[in-house]
């Protein structure tokens, strides 16, 4: 039998089926879901709209900066703004988030200055913000590893008798990693106050979701004994409501929840990637109709929740943010050569200090040569 012949269930159309939680249709129509009532004011929706537009602008600007050689690489969140802003805004200040490398929208919600995100991609640092200060861990590139950190952190929360909750971000591809499945085992057995937030953007670089699972991903959780739910990842209201309820469950001792945010990676995997080699433009077209920002704009306009002035103001704010980001990026200082030796250990070792001084005098020998 060739692999071609293997019957593999294609994931259902997200707009179809009762298993998808949606509160705002692609057309911007507000719909209700029995399990996830959401009572939200026009102002709150405007704030979400602002978040969505600004994080997208950050992303667009960063992509441009990479094109101009100011960044080594960039992982775009284009298309995933709603999943990230919706879940990010569901978090309380004390909650802890463990991102992968694409959670720029969540970082925004946690108050991380977008500029601090650029260091990793420019190569000036390996993690630009204080995880404790923001309750947002540094990015994790080794796929899946952060889900275990999140689980352990949640076990700590449990031991502290605290009401904090924890959220772990990962992708559809990550769901295949042993670490992620071990995190499911741990979270379930210890009933950890944890939300597994999986952004199923349909692709793991060039591999479609079918290479990772033949059933809807959210059902993975059932095999580990905790609830799984699929939410329209391009619907910021649904992502907010579903994540909030999962976090509340975690806080109240009901243990972990798996959320599959059904979305789409509108851009390349990273700026180094060329998606035309492996996917069809038509797929992109279909998803463009489900844009996470357009539907909020449509809803706000139709419902009178915002006027043209509001939208213009946000655009201006986005422009200013872009300018600030660009200026900040090019001004990011290169690290000092000797900083290579900093922070390897809390308690430095004589051996490494010798290497540092050895390299220092080696460098000095050139200084001399310059005279």
């Amino acid at each position, binding site marked *: 039998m060739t692999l071609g012949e293997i019957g593999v269930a294609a994931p259902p159309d997200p707009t179809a089926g009762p298993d998808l939680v949606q509160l705002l249709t692609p057309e911007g129509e507000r719909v209700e879901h029995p399990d996830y009532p959401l009572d939200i004011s026009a102002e709150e929706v405007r704030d979400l709209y602002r978040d969505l537009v600004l994080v997208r602008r950050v992303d667009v600007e960063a992509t441009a900066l990479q094109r101009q050689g100011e960044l080594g690489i960039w992982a775009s969140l284009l298309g995933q703004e709603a999943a990230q802003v919706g879940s990010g805004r569901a978090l309380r200040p004390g909650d*802890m988030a463990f991102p992968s490398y694409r959670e720029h929208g969540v970082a925004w919600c946690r108050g991380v200055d977008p500029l601090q995100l650029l260091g990793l991609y420019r190569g000036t*640092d*390996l*993690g630009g913000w*204080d*995880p*404790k200060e923001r309750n947002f*861990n*540094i990015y994790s590139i*080794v796929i899946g*590893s952060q*889900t*275990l*950190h*999140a*689980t*352990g*952190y*949640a*076990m*700590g*929360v449990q*031991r*502290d008798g605290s009401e904090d909750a924890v959220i772990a971000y990962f992708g559809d591809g990550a769901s295949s990693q*042993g*670490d992620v499945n*071990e*995190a499911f*085992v*741990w979270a379930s*057995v210890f009933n950890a106050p944890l939300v597994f937030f999986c952004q199923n953007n349909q692709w793991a670089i060039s591999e479609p979701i079918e290479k990772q699972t033949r059933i809807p991903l959210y059902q993975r959780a059932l095999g580990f004994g905790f609830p799984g739910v699929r939410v329209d990842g391009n619907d910021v209201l649904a992502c907010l409501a579903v994540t909030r309820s999962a976090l509340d469950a975690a806080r109240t001792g009901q243990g972990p929840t798996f959320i599959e945010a059904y979305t789409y990676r509108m851009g390349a995997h990273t700026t180094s990637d060329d998606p035309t080699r492996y996917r069809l433009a038509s797929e992109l077209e279909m998803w463009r109709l489900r844009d996470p920002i357009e539907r909020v704009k449509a809803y706000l306009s139709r419902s009178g929740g915002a006027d043209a002035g509001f939208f213009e103001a946000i655009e201006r704010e986005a422009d200013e943010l872009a300018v600030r980001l660009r200026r900040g990026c090019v001004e990011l200082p290169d690290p000092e050569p000797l900083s290579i030796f*900093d*922070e*390897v*250990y*809390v*308690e430095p*070792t*004589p*051996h*490494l200090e010798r290497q540092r001084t050895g390299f220092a005098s080696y460098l000095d020998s050139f200084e001399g040569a310059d005279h």
Partner: protein
Amino acid sequence: MATFTIAKALNEGLRRAMEDDPKVLIMGEDVGKLGGVFRVTDGLQKDFGEDRVIDTPLAESGIVGTAIGLAMRGYRPVCEIQFDGFVYPAFDQIVSQLAKMHYRSKGRTRLPVTIRIPFGGGIGAVEHHSESPEAYFAHTAGLKVVACSNAVDAYHMIQQAIAADDPVIFFEPKRRYWEKAEVDTGATPDPLHQARVLRAGTDVTVAAYGPMVRVALDAATAAEEDGHQLEVIDLRSLSPLDTGTVLESVRRTGRLVVVHEAPSTLGMGAELAARVTEEAFYSLQAPVLRVTGFDTPYPSSRLEEDYLPDLDRVLDAVDRSLAF
């Protein structure tokens, strides 16, 4: 003064650490009711509860990965890897996560995690239960790696490792777990990363660690009958390596033999040979010789006496060194 086996000394050291700091946790497979397959955590769950002595699901990556998360939340997890051969599933979490987090976070995230690993052979075990994986970790920047060889060090070093703010891979000499010694629990121990000269000698320096320290000492006793004075050094710390103590000795003896169970190729002996030769080139009257396990997988237990360095092989190397 109390008489402890190494296993008991570790147990007492862990107990003391847990009493001193409520953030200290123990986690691993069978560390609870059973007290670990070597009983090193015996009685601790009973006294400190299931929240602090945690029987985990059976997955080493999960043990280390969740320990990292607990450390981020302010805890000091002590992970037990049941046997040396079972640390490999946790390798990514150890070398890519545990070892690098402090560096990657610019020092903002400290991970005071201790990973206890009973290591080495000589107990007639089945495969994967007699490995010496220390070089993998000593090659990994960001980790600290130590090995105790006796009950006194076991008691103090485990507490020092737990108190340290850097991740520490803590190797325990499995085959020596039942060797006894008088332990002064009140004494102030040497720094964790300092080697110790256990026996002064003038002719050849023999450096060992963990289970091989006893072999080195026995060899020194035997060599004395042949009129050779061996200086025996217990390295204690494998990363950082206390090359200073070794160099001071080699500058006097002019000869160095390194002993370990791990395979020769890229074992600790290789690094010591390279450093000592570079630092004391003109003092050496013979090349640094290595008495180690062979470059093969660990053999079936009926062969381990041939595989493992013993007194005769050390003496043979000493003779070869002196013959140069």
